């Protein structure tokens, strides 16, 4: 089946894709170019041109103790969020795939959270985990000092991880369910005839055949956790307490727009971009190739 549109005018196809190209250029390539420029230059204090400084901005970033602690927290956050979101997403998909009662309704309900904007989620979770209101105020009344994300950095990070995972579960669920439903029914039936119960079939048949989906989601989740966590951090903790939740993406914002160190922030964003590019490269180079049967 080959359907190819043919245009009489050579300009028409370009005109048709122009809006899309324009959007990509204005919102992606242009800012990226600017970031590169800033990363290698230094702005004069009262304006009046930039000065080329080579790798000096990067050297400064890499020698900062705060930066490395931010990297550490970001990795912790990304790994924990991805693991939690993938684990829960897989579990939910396995159950829905078994057509438990009401799975049609659950399917819809489980997809929704992905459509909620991060700041809204952040707001809700901030209330849920607030130490002075709701459930946790009750626990705190019973055991004082049990939970307070506004004072305890570990609590704050944990809260952030839970909120981040909650958002990603929906996305993972959709992909896992699609993956499960593309496994031929006959394989499950054959395994049932071979004597494997439902749990055994999940382990021996469904999980291995989901491996391509699984690795795809690992990469997507990690990337998403590194780059898309700004909304949650900004609303829930603003990087605090005491930089305990100062994720890389949030640090770029606070250094750049609050600390007014454009050049340092630009250098940081180049580093983050390099990280995401590396993850994507791994995805295409190794995972996509190796994980397919047949």
């Amino acid at each position, binding site marked *: 089946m080959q359907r190819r549109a043919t245009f009489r005018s050579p300009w028409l196809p370009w005109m048709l894709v122009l809006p899309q190209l324009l959007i990509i250029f204005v919102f992606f390539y242009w800012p990226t170019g600017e970031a590169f420029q800033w990363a290698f230059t230094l702005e004069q204090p009262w304006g009046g041109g930039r000065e080329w400084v080579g790798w000096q901005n990067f050297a400064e970033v890499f020698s900062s103790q705060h930066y490395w602690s931010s990297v550490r927290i970001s990795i912790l956050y990304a790994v924990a969020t991805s693991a939690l979101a993938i684990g829960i997403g897989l579990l939910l998909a396995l159950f829905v795939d078994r057509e438990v009662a009401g799975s049609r309704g659950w399917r819809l309900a489980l997809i929704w959270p992905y459509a909620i904007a991060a700041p809204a989620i952040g707001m809700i979770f901030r209330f849920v985990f607030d130490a002075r209101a709701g459930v946790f105020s009750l626990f705190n009344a019973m055991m004082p000092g049990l939970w307070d994300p506004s004072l305890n950095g570990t609590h704050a990070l944990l809260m952030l991880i839970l909120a981040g995972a909650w958002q990603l579960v929906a996305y993972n669920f959709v992909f896992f369910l699609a993956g499960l439903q593309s496994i031929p029914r*006959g394989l499950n*039936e054959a395994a*049932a*005839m*071979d*004597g494997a119960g439902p749990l055994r079939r999940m382990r021996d048949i469904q999980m291995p055949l989901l*491996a391509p989906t699984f690795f795809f989601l690992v990469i997507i989740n990690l990337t998403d956790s590194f780059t898309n966590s700004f909304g949650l951090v900004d609303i829930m903790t603003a990087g605090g307490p005491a930089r305990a939740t100062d994720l890389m993406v949030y640090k770029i914002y606070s250094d750049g727009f609050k600390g007014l160190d454009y050049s340092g922030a630009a250098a940081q964003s180049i580093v983050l971009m390099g990280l995401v590019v590396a993850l994507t490269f791994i995805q295409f180079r190794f995972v996509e190739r190796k994980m397919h*049967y047949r």
Partner: protein
Amino acid sequence: MAAIEFIAARKSYGASIAIHELDLVLPPGAFTVILGPSGCGKSTLLRMIAGLEGISGGELRIGGARMNEREPKDRGCAMVFQNYALYPHMTVAENIGYPLKVGGVRRAERQARVAEAAAALGLDALLDRRPGQLSGGQRQRVAMGRAMVRRPRVFLYDEPLSNLDAKLRVQMRLELRRLHEQLGATSVLVTHDQQEAMTLADHLVVMRGGRVEQEGRPREVYAAPASLFVAGFLGTPAMNLLPGAVTPDGAGLRLEGGVVVPLPLRLPAGQAVTLGIRPEHVGEGDLEAEVALVEDLGASLLVHARLAGGAAMALHRPAELAPARGAALRLGFDTARLHFFDSGSGQRIGGEGGRGASPAGAGEAARRPALLATT
């Protein structure tokens, strides 16, 4: 060896009925073939035996024990699926050994039994490959190995040969038969290929629309089809079926076109009756016909002739005597080889056809009262 018994078993999906109330016994140790066109419920029947489909009513027994509530794995059945359903992420050895692994058989014994099954199927050299690296015939063997290795009481085959090319199909057919003889378990095979059914079966069950149309030994079913449906379905080329009406004196059948064939038994005058005769039983006689088309089958010729009055008739002729198109033929029927069916109900008239219930050596199953004959 275990018999499989259906006792008033039914299967319905909501309002639509897949299997009507069914009484059927598949004899122990026999190779039973369930034959029917697509959508006749034959695969559903097989899946009911396997436990992959629930039973809506009645009872299923294997080896005398009720199976309705048992899980597939507890029924002692192994199944070969149409698309083989091999696990793509496991090697051939792992595929064959999977039922044993699940069953908790020790590694050493497992390997021995896998090797044994592989040797029986000629898979020794392929044990480390994955299904994706195998040809259709090899996959088929792996699927059979996986079924064999558990030493089940019952083998179920769901159209196992339909995905193979013609040559391989004939070869695997022989192999299936050989395996059945070697293993001695009860085998049930579902197919829509009547040649496969004829060659493989000890016991043939013809299904149509969720009911059993006829059962018995293949030879008996072929020689005395119980209905127009079975007559037309079994045999290639198909039986010639010529509609007609009983003459006023009740002793002959006037075919469309005016030819009168004597009836072996008295029938009410005017009854609409269809005459059936297989192409290989059409001989020489005094019926005038004209050759319309000749097909060369290699070993013999298949001649499509047109009787006076327009009725079509296919017949075999030796390869040496090729008639030209348009040539005149004089055909005759051996009256002992004629079949008569009621054109209205489709049921066989006279002869020992009935439901293939010939007393001569038919299995226990064949002696059960006919299902359709009672309707």
